[in-house]
């Protein structure tokens, strides 16, 4: 393994040898033992890992209590979990169509109205035949040029 490859390994998998892929770990360890450049790279990766570890404080007791209280309140007022086979309508948080749910009654009403209109149009008698508006009387009414 070359130092450039080792540098890429450290960037990808970090400084902890336990997290290096087994296929590369042996060669990386050998390079670490033989190369001062690799040892310098490893020290830098370890320093970065330590800095990252220091930078992430856990929540203090007050924050934890606050989060637990808010969550308990939200869970207490939330409906029970949706059953595993529920349709997307039963899990508003997971559905991209959840915002349409309040419109469901209005949509049903519109569909019923539309169906009633179509039914009425089909069943209603058509316009009565108007013999005086037929083609022969109309033609007869047209004044032909002399």
């Amino acid at each position, binding site marked *: 393994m070359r130092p450039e490859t080792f540098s890429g390994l450290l*960037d*990808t998998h970090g400084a902890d040898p336990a997290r290096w892929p087994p296929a590369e770990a042996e060669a990386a360890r050998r390079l670490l033992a033989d190369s001062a450049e690799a040892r310098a790279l490893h020290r*830098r990766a370890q320093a970065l890992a330590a800095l*990252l570890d220091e*930078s992430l404080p856990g929540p203090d007791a007050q924050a934890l209590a606050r989060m637990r209280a808010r969550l308990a309140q*939200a869970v207490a007022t939330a409906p029970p979990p949706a059953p*595993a086979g529920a349709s997307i309508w039963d899990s508003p*948080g997971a559905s991209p169509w959840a915002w349409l749910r309040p419109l469901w009654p209005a949509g049903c009403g519109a569909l019923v109205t539309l169906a009633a209109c179509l039914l009425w149009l089909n069943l209603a008698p058509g316009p009565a035949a108007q013999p005086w508006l037929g083609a022969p009387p109309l033609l007869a009414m047209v004044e032909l040029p002399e």
Partner: protein
Amino acid sequence: MPNALLSIAGWEAPITERSSPDAAPKAGAVPPLARDRAAAADAVLLGWAAAGDRLAFDQLATRHLPALYRIGLRITGSAAEAEEVAQEALLRAWRNAARFDPARGQVGTWLYSIASHAAIDRARRAAPLPLDAAPETADPAPDPEAALAARERQALLGAALRELPPRQRAALALSHDQGLSGAEAAAALSISTRALEGLLRRARFLLASRLRGILE
């Protein structure tokens, strides 16, 4: 695709393969009053929660809140946002408790996945944090000079972290902070292992180049 859907869909068993909601951890096997929630495993607690046991869910939440908060903090860079992320993730988990498929991974990893997606969404929506909004860290050094140096190092790290895209911060949060394996972290972010490695490589490379002066 909304992240709520992404995070949940990736862990949900197809309906045809799924057993009944309470079959995985046998939620109904122990009556609620006889349940030892403190000693129960995460999957058992989630199974009980899926059957409506709010106390079991509270126990599960208590176990995972600190880790979910840290994930939110790493990705959003804000303590207030981190609290929101942790609560939002757990509330989504409550709603979808019955959809968790234990064959696809551990409960903790599933929760981290939901929290990561929620935090990435928030980080993308939020305006860039001002420089003084970095999370407060405890001073590990007792003497003032060392404490000042530590604060300066953390400020530099905070500035470098804010340059990273949210997905790279999420990769660091899961892989470095939570110690997930590459496959677990990739599954949690709904990406391939190769893509995760790319995110980690670019993140660490940028951090190392920005912090060259203090890492030597």
